[in-house]
């Protein structure tokens, strides 16, 4: 599986959860919106950083994007994925910001690129050596944590994360009930989190 497919696999199949959360937000549940923000904050910041290079401005615009999204959430009809809708708001927010300052967009990212957007390259260029080192350490810790998982947990977890398979498909492949798949993936996540948690709390991914 190519890296691009890997990326898409975990992103494109998660619209149901987003829709559930959007429904809750519409009914007045602010906690549901928090989960959407946490889920997408990194990616929205990455989109905006294609247009704006100053980190503080990127963070301000990321915040503004989510505030706009919250206020407009009743207008989200579900015709596209929530992330695509959010992506458009982020792009427009960044463009408006630049226009207001008579600055030409420094980068480009059309809304149609939302699903294929690759944020890695330029952002790596922006990262400080210290941050790059932290990420390298995290990557190593992650690899160690995954390698240390029992085989049954690791298989289920990787089939989900890297291949983007549904629980049903994983259950078929591993010849076990769906509930077992769900439990194994949870336990794998939990184990990795326990190993990486201290690092995640004190550094950036």
């Amino acid at each position, binding site marked *: 599986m190519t890296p691009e497919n890997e990326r898409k696999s975990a992103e494109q199949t998660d619209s149901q959860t987003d829709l559930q959360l959007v429904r809750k937000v519409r009914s007045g549940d602010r*906690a549901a919106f928090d989960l959407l923000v*946490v889920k997408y904050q990194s*990616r929205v*910041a990455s989109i905006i950083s294609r247009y704006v290079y100053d980190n503080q401005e990127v*963070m301000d615009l990321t915040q503004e994007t989510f505030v706009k999204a919250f*206020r407009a959430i*009743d207008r989200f009809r579900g015709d596209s994925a929530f992330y695509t809708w959010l992506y458009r708001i982020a792009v427009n927010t960044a463009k408006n910001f630049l226009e207001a300052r008579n600055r030409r967009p420094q980068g480009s990212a059309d809304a149609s690129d939302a699903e294929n957007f690759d944020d890695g390259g330029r952002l790596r260029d922006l990262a400080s050596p210290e941050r790059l080192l932290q990420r390298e350490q995290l990557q190593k810790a992650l690899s160690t944590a995954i390698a240390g998982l029992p085989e049954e947990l690791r298989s289920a977890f990787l089939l989900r994360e890297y291949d983007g398979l549904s629980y049903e498909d994983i259950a078929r492949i591993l010849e076990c009930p769906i509930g077992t798949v769900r439990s194994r993936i949870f336990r794998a996540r*939990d184990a*990795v989190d326990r190993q*990486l948690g201290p690092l995640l709390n004190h550094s950036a991914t």
Partner: protein
Amino acid sequence: MDERLRETLSAMMDDEADELSVRRLLSHQEQTDVRDQWQRWQQIRDLMHDHHGPGDGVDVAAAVRENLDGRDQTAPATPAAPPLKAWGWPWSVAAMVMLAMVVGFGAGTGWESSEGADGQLVAHQPDVPASALPVSMEELSLQGLDEEQLKQMRQFMLEHAQHSSVGAGRGSVGYARVVSANSGY
């Protein structure tokens, strides 16, 4: 947060949680725990997929929350309900009550509304544009009523409300018949 809720959260990460479980999770009292756990798992996923952003390690959610909490008036805290569904039943009953009051006092006591009197009692619904109201409600005002008329009106409204609540709307229908009979139809 107990094991079961965390497993639900994990399933949410994979778009495999059902609506009921999500509702249960979001109604959990310690939402900070839920958010922290969700955030760490998202970070791990980002790490696995090599997603890096300039906002890594920064909690935008907290800033967004503060921003929105400061402007709750603009928040979509309540869903935008379809107008007909929201107004249909209450307005039909309200319109009937108002019609009853207008016809009842007009026919029964010879009362007519007059503008500009002190102590006026005005039918008022600030959240609804006047153009959305029935004509009779848009213009209706009960002004210059004496004590006896007000007492009679209160009594009538009480009786009407009782009929409506007991008869699930049959009180309104009954009154409509009375109006029809009085007006000769």
